[in-house]
């Protein structure tokens, strides 16, 4: 047989697309050509594959060899086509049974000695293979736990090209999967119990997490804003199996996952403030997910919010509202999921001290406020001031544990799950203005209270909706069907408004 085809998968954003690797061997001067929109790493596969085949003791055809990657319009990126490429050549030269390669898909980067190196996106590849009805997926053994997360397809982990050939030929059986290594981060390592002197904030944080509201923490440096933010993922309800699989796939595709199987911790991403817009929402010549996608189902934390590039913050708006970001490049349109809780921290003024200790000029403070009051303030339902705890509070207060807070959160989430059944949103924080009007169920007295704030304190229309959204969660915490004036009062004391900035601005 001088022609063979093997199934592989190309990464397209965080999805995988089927690719057929065809190898054709015919008489002629020895040559090795790869066609079909391959990138640099893939074109270099010629050298790796040739080395790996020869060093594994197989014959490399000293003839005219053409490899085609179909479909031709799809850009193929990365080195994980090495294994399917090698197997296509071996099948075309009759060294592997072509019928055995037909029922499986393959992925993996080859070393020159025939070993398989770790790869990115094993989960996405396995999902693609399952979608296309393959019975088996061959991946590097170091990533087999990831591929094994997909039900209904047999994940085969191999260490070398020889091992793959032997299993295909029936000379060897697939080895059992290696044991899952211990989780890198212990869930209990970041417990609310370690945060001392901030008991006054816990009730508000409970509500924020329960409703999935975006949160703005303001306060002088060193008071514990970051410490609190880091503990928020641990307060959210555990991820469902689908959510966890999605998170694992995203992190695996971007090479941030070390093959430890399913990620069960909600992600916490804290990009530095010098990040670009495409770093934040995704992009690049070969579009990669941004930080907001890496924070999908978790928490995106923007520390020193006012220092972020305005364009980058502006770019976050639409993904935060839609729960996904669409990136268009010349040849492709990619969609990345971006459902996350946004938490931002800022100092009250450039010097950080705020209030009477502030040493900033009015112009500096005004500039600082303008940066804050820009594109994202609208998306922040809650602003909490994190004051420096007194020594007495640090020592005297007994903090709550994350588990206790999570329990209260779960109760309110159950109420919301009933409310949003059959809609695209899952919590109050994601409600659109229209949903706020239709689903909040505020009593006339509660609306009167809100109107009072609107008229006298200059609450904006957006601010009005934010308070209502938050009040809905406050009511959900006590399983109250209607939103009463009390709930509005509580919500309004935690609200975000443009006027929470000094009048001097």
């Amino acid at each position, binding site marked *: 047989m001088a022609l063979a085809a093997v199934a592989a998968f190309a990464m397209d954003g965080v999805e995988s697309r089927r690719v057929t690797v065809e190898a054709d061997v015919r008489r002629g001067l020895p040559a090795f050509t790869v066609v079909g929109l391959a990138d640099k790493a893939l074109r270099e596969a010629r050298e790796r594959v040739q080395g790996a085949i020869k060093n594994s003791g197989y014959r490399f055809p000293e003839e005219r060899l053409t490899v085609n990657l179909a479909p031709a319009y799809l850009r193929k990126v990365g080195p994980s086509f090495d294994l399917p490429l090698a197997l296509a050549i071996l099948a075309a030269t009759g060294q592997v049974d072509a019928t055995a390669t037909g029922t499986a898909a393959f992925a993996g980067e080859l070393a020159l000695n025939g070993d398989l190196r770790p790869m990115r996106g094993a989960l996405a590849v396995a999902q693609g293979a399952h979608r296309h009805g393959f019975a088996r997926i061959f991946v590097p053994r170091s990533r087999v736990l990831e591929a094994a997360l997909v039900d209904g397809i047999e994940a085969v982990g191999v260490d070398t090209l020889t091992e793959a050939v032997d299993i295909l030929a029936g000379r060897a059986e697939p080895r059992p999967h290696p044991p899952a290594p211990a989780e890198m981060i212990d869930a209990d390592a970041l417990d609310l119990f370690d945060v001392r002197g901030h008991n*006054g904030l816990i009730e508000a944080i409970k509500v924020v997490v329960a409703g999935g509201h975006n949160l703005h923490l303001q306060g002088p440096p060193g008071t514990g804003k970051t410490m609190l933010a880091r503990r928020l993922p641990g307060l959210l309800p555990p991820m469902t199996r689908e959510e966890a699989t999605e998170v694992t796939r995203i992190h695996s595709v971007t090479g941030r996952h070390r093959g430890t199987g399913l990620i069960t911790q909600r992600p916490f991403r804290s990009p530095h403030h010098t990040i670009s817009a495409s770093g934040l929402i995704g992009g690049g010549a070969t579009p990669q997910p941004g930080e907001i996608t890496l924070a999908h189902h978790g928490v995106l934390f923007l520390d020193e919010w006012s220092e972020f590039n305005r364009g980058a913050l502006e770019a976050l708006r639409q993904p935060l509202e839609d729960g996904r970001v669409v990136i268009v490049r010349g040849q492709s349109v990619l969609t990345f999921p971006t459902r996350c809780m946004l938490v931002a921290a800022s100092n009250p003024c450039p010097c950080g001290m705020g209030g009477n200790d502030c040493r900033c*000029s*009015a112009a500096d403070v005004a500039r600082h406020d303008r940066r804050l009051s820009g594109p994202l303030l609208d998306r922040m339902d809650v602003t909490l001031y994190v*004051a420096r705890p007194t020594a007495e509070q640090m020592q005297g207060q007994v903090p709550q544990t994350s588990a206790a807070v999570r329990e209260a959160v779960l109760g309110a989430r159950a109420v919301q799950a009933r409310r949003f059944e059959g809609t695209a949103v899952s919590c109050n924080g994601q409600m659109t203005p229209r949903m706020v009007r239709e689903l909040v169920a505020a009593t006339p007295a509660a609306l009167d209270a809100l109107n009072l704030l609107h008229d006298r304190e200059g609450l904006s229309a957006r601010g009005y909706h934010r308070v209502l959204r938050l009040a809905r969660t406050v009511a959900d915490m006590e399983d109250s069907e209607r939103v009463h004036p009390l709930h509005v009062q509580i919500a309004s004391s935690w609200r975000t408004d443009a006027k*929470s900035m*000094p*009048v001097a601005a």
Partner: protein
Amino acid sequence: MTATACDACLRRTDLIAALAGRIEIEWLGRRGRPQLLALGDEALLEWAGVAEIGARFRGFAAAPARAAIAAAGLSAVCRCEDDYPPGLRDLPDPPAVLHWRGRLPAEDDEAVVIVGARRATAYGTEVAHGLGRSLAAAGLTVVSGMALGIDSAAHAGALEASGRTVAVMACGADRSYPARKQALHRQIAASGAVVSEMPPGFTPFRWAFPARNRTIAALGRATVVVEATERSGSLITADLAMEIGRPVAAVPGPITSTRSAGTNLLLKTGAEVVCGAQDVLDLLFGAGARAAPSRADQEPLSPELRRLFDAVRDGRGSPAELAGDGNALAVAAGLGELEMRGLVRRSMGGTYVAVLG
């Protein structure tokens, strides 16, 4: 829009604008208020000694100047006319022409000056805002300079009470300086007046600020300084007010803060103490003659709300600080209720301050 000012006064205004650069050079060596403005036209020309300016002065035509004033949407009145604000006549060097947009204070308007530092603390802006609001609510016109910090806060307070407020500009009255206060400039023109002695479009020189301070001081019946360092321009306003016999008052500040050193110095040298709007009303109309609109102390509050309100007044600002280890939900609800009753308001970063009574 009427530009009634007489030819001679318009010509003098044009002369001062033409000499602005030379006045700046002279002024930089002396500081304080520019003494040159007290000179007559001929004396100014002689001092300047520039032929071109003399020619411009003698060739001055009033009609285009009036047209420019009207085109800028301003009105004008000069010191030769009856409509000229009478308070300004107390000055040794009253502005020749007053340009304004809005409604000029009438003779029976009771106006009070609130000024202070641009670099103000949260305390200072809150006090200025509160005084502006309460005094405007009591029917007074709040006069200030629309600078950043205290001045703007006083204007904003008066606007919040839907009261009258007048901003005296160092630039032309048609312009907003600082530029970012354009919205405030518009609002003040709509509910009071923006005024200036300089012609429309004038870009302020540094001497123009102490110069306009004399107009501020003379427009009010008393001057209240809210926050000032020892070198603050608002002390110039206080000096000018004293010179023309207007009472001066100051708001005390922490003795450890340089931002209050100027006001504390004023108090040491005999200025009246202002701890609230009532003190200003007492100063103007005699003790107890007029009462500031009632506030917290008269409001019936439950013991819990009273305790919470007192804690806010003590300076514990954020909901979390106020809650401490106690019932955070009750505190949050209490703050919401106090705000809706107008006793506290949200300030920086979600902290709360008591509304001044």
